[in-house]
């Protein structure tokens, strides 16, 4: 499949392929539930490429010791930056691109700044060092684990190390060269070993759903500074789902195998202080509300049928959450799926084998 290439190429041919200008500016984030959880904001960074990325106050749950994780890092067969990150991303309006409606995009909304990152571009780059609403961020995607995650990057940028852990992208920050497995969001090697990145929610949805929900969205274009066969996914296809995204081959062995589910089943995973929970995404979209049972920290997940995604909330008082037309009833009021009056827990889509590989003790809710 070839999507927007020809339109973009005409522009490139006229102006050269050099990426020009910086990133879009915008309003600063305020009151955005997709933004970094306030409790995670902590250290500041110094300016320049030697700066460290901002890290969270509290570490994420990691089920293995770092030495064990380091010993399981394998080469993906490419050198550092062999898969080049996009460091000067260019955007177009929704009307200026021609992307099939069923293609996956990774959506970010921060204040008035709304952006979509098409999967068919990120599969060739894996990391976009961007500024959203003026904030320096990294939008990351690992095709092998089916995970899209956002990180605050401060004044540094992230790159692709070429290594994999649990079949998952291992990033490095260009300030300290620490190694950050994407899904763990925690450095396992380098000067920042043990530190945890500040994360923000990325919505994995379809272009049609995102565009309908956010007609004013900006879309990452193929003007990446590199030439690639954009539209040709070396792993297969999500629209329709084919090859790697649809078979049982994990390509690289997971840290732990868990046959409770087929390897490529998509779960919405959430990490708590000392354990992890996976909600079956298809079941969530069908049932609209899923809740943990007998959990020390009760969680409830609700579906967003418009964006084909879900959100996870801590529900310590086990308040009743009921699906209604146009939202969810909690107490006497109805709320949007992304705005329940409960504490949001960061969650992201993942292939089951990768989630269970990193979090072998994970509970599974369907």
């Amino acid at each position: 499949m070839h999507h927007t290439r020809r339109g973009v190429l005409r522009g490139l041919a006229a102006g050269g392929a050099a990426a020009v200008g910086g990133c879009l500016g915008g309003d600063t984030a305020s009151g955005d539930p997709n933004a970094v959880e306030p409790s995670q904001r902590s250290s500041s960074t110094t300016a320049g490429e030697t700066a460290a990325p901002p890290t969270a106050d509290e570490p994420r749950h990691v089920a293995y010791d770092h030495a064990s994780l380091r010993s399981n890092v394998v080469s993906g067969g490419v050198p550092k930056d062999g898969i080049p990150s996009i460091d000067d991303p260019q955007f177009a309006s929704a009307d200026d691109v021609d992307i099939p409606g069923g293609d996956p995009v990774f959506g970010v909304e921060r204040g008035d700044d709304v952006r979509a990152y098409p999967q068919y571009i990120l599969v060739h780059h894996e990391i976009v060092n961007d500024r959203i609403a003026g904030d320096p961020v990294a939008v990351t995607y690992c095709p092998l684990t089916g995970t899209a995650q956002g990180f605050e990057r401060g004044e540094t940028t992230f790159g692709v190390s070429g290594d994999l852990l649990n079949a998952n992208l291992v990033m490095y920050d260009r300030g300290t060269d620490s190694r950050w497995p994407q899904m763990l969001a925690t450095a396992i090697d380098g000067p920042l070993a043990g530190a945890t990145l500040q994360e923000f929610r990325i919505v994995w949805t379809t272009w049609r759903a995102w565009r309908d929900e956010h007609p004013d969205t900006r879309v990452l274009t193929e003007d990446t500074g590199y030439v690639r066969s954009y539209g040709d996914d070396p792993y297969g296809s999500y629209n329709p789902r084919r090859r790697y995204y649809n078979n049982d081959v994990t390509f690289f062995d997971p840290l732990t195998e868990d046959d409770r589910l087929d390897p490529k089943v998509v779960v919405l995973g959430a990490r708590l202080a000392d354990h992890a929970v996976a909600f079956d995404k298809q079941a969530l979209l069908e049932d609209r509300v899923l809740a943990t049972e007998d959990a020390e920290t009760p969680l409830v997940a609700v579906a967003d049928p418009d964006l084909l995604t879900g959100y996870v909330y801590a529900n310590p008082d086990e308040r009743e959450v009921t699906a209604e037309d146009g939202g969810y009833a909690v107490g006497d009021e109805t709320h949007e799926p992304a705005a329940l009056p409960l504490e949001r827990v960061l969650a992201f889509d993942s292939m089951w084998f990768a989630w269970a590989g990193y979090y072998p003790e994970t509970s599974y809710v369907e």
Partner: protein
Amino acid sequence: MSSESALGTVATRGVASGRNTWRAIRGALGRRDGGTLFVLAVVGYLAAYLVGIGHLDWNTGGTAFVVVDDPLARATERMAPYQYEPVALVAAGPFELLVSPLNVLLGLGLGLLVGANLAVSWVAYRSPASCGLGSGAGVLAGFPALFSGIACCGPAFLVVLGIQATAGLVAAFQWFVPLSVALLAATLLWVGRRVGTQATRPDQV
């Protein structure tokens, strides 16, 4: 025999083998059938190599020509072992080509070796003195390089075939190109040594 004289003998034989091979190549390319086979093999192998590393594909869009900014610097950026950044995209007619100058040169070099192998082998096959060497001898040696492409993380052919990768296999695939070069050179010398003299004799072919 002292080690010095043994070394000298090996060197002498090597030089002689190289001369024979060179004669065989010249002889093969001097023939119409050998020359045609050579050209077809070079072009065919280059195309197969570019397809194998994902740089040549069907064009499903319109016509386009794009060059990246600072192509000289970009051309030497390494994407994977023996795979370098494309600096241009050319889409025309049925084909779309990502132009990576170093990979085109590499593919051309491999293609020349494959072509020489095939042409000399053909001459050997036609020569009574060759003891029935097959015309495909040595061509298989070019196969490993066809599978040296990467697909984001890992060897592309494993992804396409849906085969589980292992750390050892991923480590091994970086040797596919040097392996091809070594095998092609070895088979060329082997065949050339046998037909170098005969191939140049009109009465033998």
